[in-house]
């Protein structure tokens, strides 16, 4: 059952479940897919979250489609969404993307790695191993532009938030808070335990899809050395490479790094060729 709630005079909040899990997540994704495929001229945008989707609409444009009766735009939008989503089939989901995120763990990039290891009775290497051996689901993007809420972290490396949040967590920091892991796209205050940093930009306002990740993506963290990290940063600053990378890319949108594959294309091979060297996988 889908429950509808008003969220101001220009948005509807649809709720697909009341706890965070993959079943509800799949319903949310399936509903989002239907909105992608059935563009409504009154719809402005939608925002998917853990258990909900908000659909933002233009109330005045609804009147073009309200035929007779005294329906208010809110009621009209609820009815239309109900109809659109009546055949919701979460099982019939198309493949998701897998995005590899290089992370330089520990050291000055991950000042809290030692703490996370200590409270869990592990070595730093073990924490890195556990953190980078899982595949995570992007449940939603929120908090700050491009910030992914990732599900699926091992409880073996869970760690409480810092008692006093840092005033400035550097951009691209990878952190742990309770049972969650995430990446700060921009410098912001925050209380997460910081275990590493990625050279990838997660928020690129100049792109047609500004957020590197989107809900439903799968994410894997790949440990890299400080040297590799610095090389990646050079690439980030190299506009020629940007153009090349985006030209190289067929059908997957303006993603700068050719590290995103659809599930059905998944194969074993070099996951992370150092920049400047040709990929062994073809």
């Amino acid at each position, binding site marked *: 059952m889908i429950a509808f709630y008003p*969220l101001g*005079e220009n*948005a509807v*909040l649809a709720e697909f479940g009341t706890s965070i899990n993959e079943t509800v997540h799949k319903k949310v994704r399936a509903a989002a897919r239907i909105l992608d495929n059935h563009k409504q001229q009154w719809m402005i945008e939608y925002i998917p*979250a853990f258990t909900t989707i908000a659909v933002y609409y233009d109330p005045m444009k609804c009147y073009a489609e309200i035929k007779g009766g005294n329906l208010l735009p809110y009621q009209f939008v609820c009815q239309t969404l109900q109809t659109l989503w009546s055949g919701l089939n979460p099982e019939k989901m198309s493949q998701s993307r897998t995005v590899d995120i290089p992370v330089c763990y520990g050291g000055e990039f991950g000042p809290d790695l030692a703490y996370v290891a200590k409270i869990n009775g592990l070595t730093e290497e073990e924490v890195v191993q556990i953190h980078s051996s899982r595949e995570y689901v992007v449940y*939603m993007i929120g908090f*700050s532009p491009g910030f992914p809420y990732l599900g699926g972290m091992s409880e073996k490396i869970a760690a409480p938030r810092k008692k006093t949040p840092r005033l400035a967590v550097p951009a691209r920091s990878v952190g742990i808070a309770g049972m969650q892991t995430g990446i700060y796209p921009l410098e912001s205050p925050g209380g997460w335990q910081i275990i590493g940093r990625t050279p990838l930009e997660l928020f690129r306002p100049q792109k047609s899809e500004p957020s590197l990740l989107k809900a439903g993506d799968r994410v894997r963290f790949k440990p890299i050395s400080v040297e590799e990290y610095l090389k990646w940063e050079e690439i980030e600053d190299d506009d020629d490479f940007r153009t090349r990378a985006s030209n190289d890319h067929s059908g997957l949108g303006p993603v700068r790094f050719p590290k995103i594959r659809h599930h059905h294309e998944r194969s074993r091979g070099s996951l992370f060729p150092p920049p400047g060297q040709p990929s062994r996988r073809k």
Partner: protein
Amino acid sequence: MFGPAVKFHKQTLISICGADLSATIDNQPVPLFRPVLVNEGKELHFTVARKGMRAYLAVAGGFRIPKIMNSHSTSLITKIGGVGGRTLEAGDELLFNRPGALSRSIISALKPKLKGPFAAAGWSAWHSPYDKITKTLYVRVVKGRHFGLFSPESRNSFFHSPYIVTSRSDRMGCRLQGEPLRLTERQEIISEPVNDGTIQVSSDGNPIILLAERQTTGGYPKIAQVAAVDIPLIAQAKPGDRIRFVPVSHEEAQKLFIRREVALREIKWGIRLKYLDKQEDVPCIRWI
């Protein structure tokens, strides 16, 4: 509180809406909510905030600013948009685009009146929301979807005691302080989308009203939602001002919104009728 001084290097058609920040040109007060043709080389000064705190300065043709993510606005948090993603600084120069047909027609109508520093139209647009700006703002709200999770005392205080605007307010959120609002039992709210005017209650029990530069999702309980027609009042609330919440139904709030939209369209339509000879593309309004 003092606003900026703006120098116009050429004759420009402008309009100032929103707060009354004592706008003057050559010490003559500039009227609000109407087109004003400013003479070349004149300086527009904003000084004392008489009513509200944010004024909007529009120029015919619009500012020539790159569009980012389909928007011209500035996001200070992400440092993008507008002029380098920052607030304007003394010495910044802003260019604007060529005025459109309607603006050109208004310019021709005002030019014969332009004897002094500026010429203003003899009429003004409807601006009743701004007439309601006082030290205590009465703001209509619809109960939020977590309203029932709050204790009976908190639900009562929300509607019966004033909340003071604090100095930690910005374009992201208007942060209020007053009778603390508590949930009946402590519980985690799953992060979900928010909207302009969403009233969240942070863990210290104080409400925050989300505004134009808000985030997309939030994990605090939503006690209420400001009726869209009253959001401009919140945007004009100064630190120290008092806000009192008045309950309305969502249906009523949506009707108020539609009435305002129709009124705005009528203004647009009226201005076009006044200044454009040929009537094309006049919007057809369906009254509800």
